[in-house]
């Protein structure tokens, strides 16, 4: 017996179904009941019920790519803040061979790196690595922080969302699975990208987001969006269809069909993962907390994996000239921006009044 619908918003302890269902991540089984363990959106796939959390800390997972900041230098390793309850360690051997060198001359405290999670042990000690295409130190740009659970949404299906931002702002963007995003371009464009990324984070659980992002990119960049013309044409085709068939197609038009799917991208993402993890899930019916995956062995070509490959290429481009201080590429009078939280009045102003 199922008590909720797909995409319903649920809270911890809420009973989702009884009997005959499997408990996916964000849920747990208690006797014959499946309950939610987090605030999130329900995802029902076949007989499996999961809840995608709206808020969550990043838990490092082997194979993830993350953006980390060096906050400690020890004898033979760097300590990094990876926006997680667990800090990461980058052993010196990952950067240079056996020879002894002064670590701070290579990477200093405050440097920001793009890394891969090599290993996470049972007490969550996180080992990071830099070997691999595109990994390394960032030069210039800004950092934007989002809730890690919103990363798949920011990427969009097959990278469509992030690519749209890249196209319109002409910025390089690298997304860490830990919710840290690096953006580099013209300073005013960096700021627009930041604004849009924050908007996606805020509205990740709503539908029709891709359209709103497109509109707001067009408005902020002052650029005409190419798809607008298509939109009208397709719209008229659809109107025609509607009159002919007497029903309106589900999607507004074919061009947007894919993007409408992104509106469920968190869930789609989830589905991919669930299938991969079906076995382990059956062993462990407790909440599967680890979220967005895009493993680097991405041959299957499921959405996010491709993004990441693409992502890495982007970084490659960047890193090829990375020995030159990248800042010099940008004219001196350029301005840049910084990561900052969107300031909003969260407090209802009357709430302290009786």
């Amino acid at each position, binding site marked *: 017996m199922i008590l909720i619908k797909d995409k319903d*918003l649920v*809270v*911890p*302890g*809420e*009973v989702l179904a009884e009997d005959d269902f499997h408990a996916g991540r*964000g849920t*747990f089984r*208690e006797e014959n009941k499946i*309950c939610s*363990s*987090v*605030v999130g959106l329900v995802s029902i796939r076949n007989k499996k019920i999961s809840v995608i*959390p*709206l*808020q*969550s*800390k990043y*838990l490092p997972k082997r194979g993830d790519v993350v953006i980390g900041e060096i906050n400690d230098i020890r004898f033979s390793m760097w300590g990094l803040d990876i926006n997680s*309850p*667990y*800090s990461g360690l980058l052993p010196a051997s990952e950067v240079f061979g056996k020879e002894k060198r002064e670590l701070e001359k290579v990477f200093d405290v405050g440097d920001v790196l793009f890394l891969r999670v090599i290993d996470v042990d*049972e*007490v*969550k000690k996180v080992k990071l690595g830099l070997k691999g295409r595109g990994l390394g130190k960032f030069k210039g740009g800004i950092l934007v922080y989002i*809730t890690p*659970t919103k990363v798949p949404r920011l990427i969009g299906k097959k990278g469509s969302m992030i690519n749209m931002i890249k196209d319109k702002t002409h910025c390089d963007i690298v997304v860490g699975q830990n919710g840290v995003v690096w953006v580099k371009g013209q300073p005013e464009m960096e700021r627009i990208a930041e604004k849009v990324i924050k908007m996606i984070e805020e509205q990740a*659980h709503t539908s029709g987001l891709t359209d709103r992002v497109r509109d707001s990119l067009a408005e902020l960049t002052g650029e005409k969006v190419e798809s607008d013309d298509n939109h009208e044409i397709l719209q008229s085709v659809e109107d025609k269809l509607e009159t002919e068939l007497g029903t309106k197609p589900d999607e507004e038009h074919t061009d947007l069909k894919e993007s409408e799917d992104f509106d469920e991208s968190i869930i789609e993402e989830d589905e991919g993962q669930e299938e991969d993890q079906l076995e382990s899930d059956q062993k462990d019916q*407790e*909440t599967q*907390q680890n979220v967005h995956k895009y493993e680097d062995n991405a041959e299957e070509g499921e959405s996010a994996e491709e993004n990441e490959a693409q992502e890495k290429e982007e970084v490659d481009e960047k890193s090829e000239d990375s020995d030159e201080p990248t800042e010099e590429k940008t004219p001196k009078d350029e301005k840049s921006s910084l990561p900052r*939280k969107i*300031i909003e009045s*969260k*407090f*209802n102003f009357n*709430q*302290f009044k*009786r």
Partner: protein
Amino acid sequence: MIIIITEDTNLGAKSREDGRAFDELRPLKIEAGVLERADGSAYLEFGGNKILVAVYGPKESHIRRFQRPDRAYIRCRYNMAPFSVDDRKRPGPDRRSMEISKVTAEALQPSILLEKYPRALIDIFIEVLEAEGGTRCAGITAASVALADAGIPMKDMVVACASGKVNDQIVLDLSEVEDKEGQADLPVAIMPRSGEITLLQSDGSLNAGEFEKAVDLAVEGCQAISKVQQDALKKRYGE
């Protein structure tokens, strides 16, 4: 919002100092996600109580005392603002607030899936901005909402409410005056789905029959408050 539990019982209908029925809660309002820096937060008004709760974590703990190899550690701090009571309270912890911090952490702990975050620390900071009786229960109720808002996985959202004995009558949710002048005060916290009790204290004199009646009444109150907790979270993300 006034929640009236309408189940009729045959207790004598002596009226209470604020005119409530014996089984009536004070007006309650909960709002989730009210602070910028905290990972999760909640603001609660319950009668004249104003409570703000912030949750940080799970986060890295640098203090060994607050680390467990196989699970997260809960640290809770209940604190009253100096201006929250009639006579200014000296800032800083006192014996009462330390005890409440301890029982609050213990009341919340059974609901939290701590084993997901070995070695990590979860901080719960409860600030009583204004106190009017029943702050520890209000703090627990708000803390659950803040924990959920922070995305911390839980089996259930713990909810708390007091009952007690005033004028020889078992009543729900004692006000400040009733707490001071009444014969007994019985704070109770439960996990609402299972009904299991996670906090139980008593201050005063009750016979076994009265005690059972008082527990039942407190649990009923908890169940009603639980709905408001859920609504607060759904409202935050619903629109």
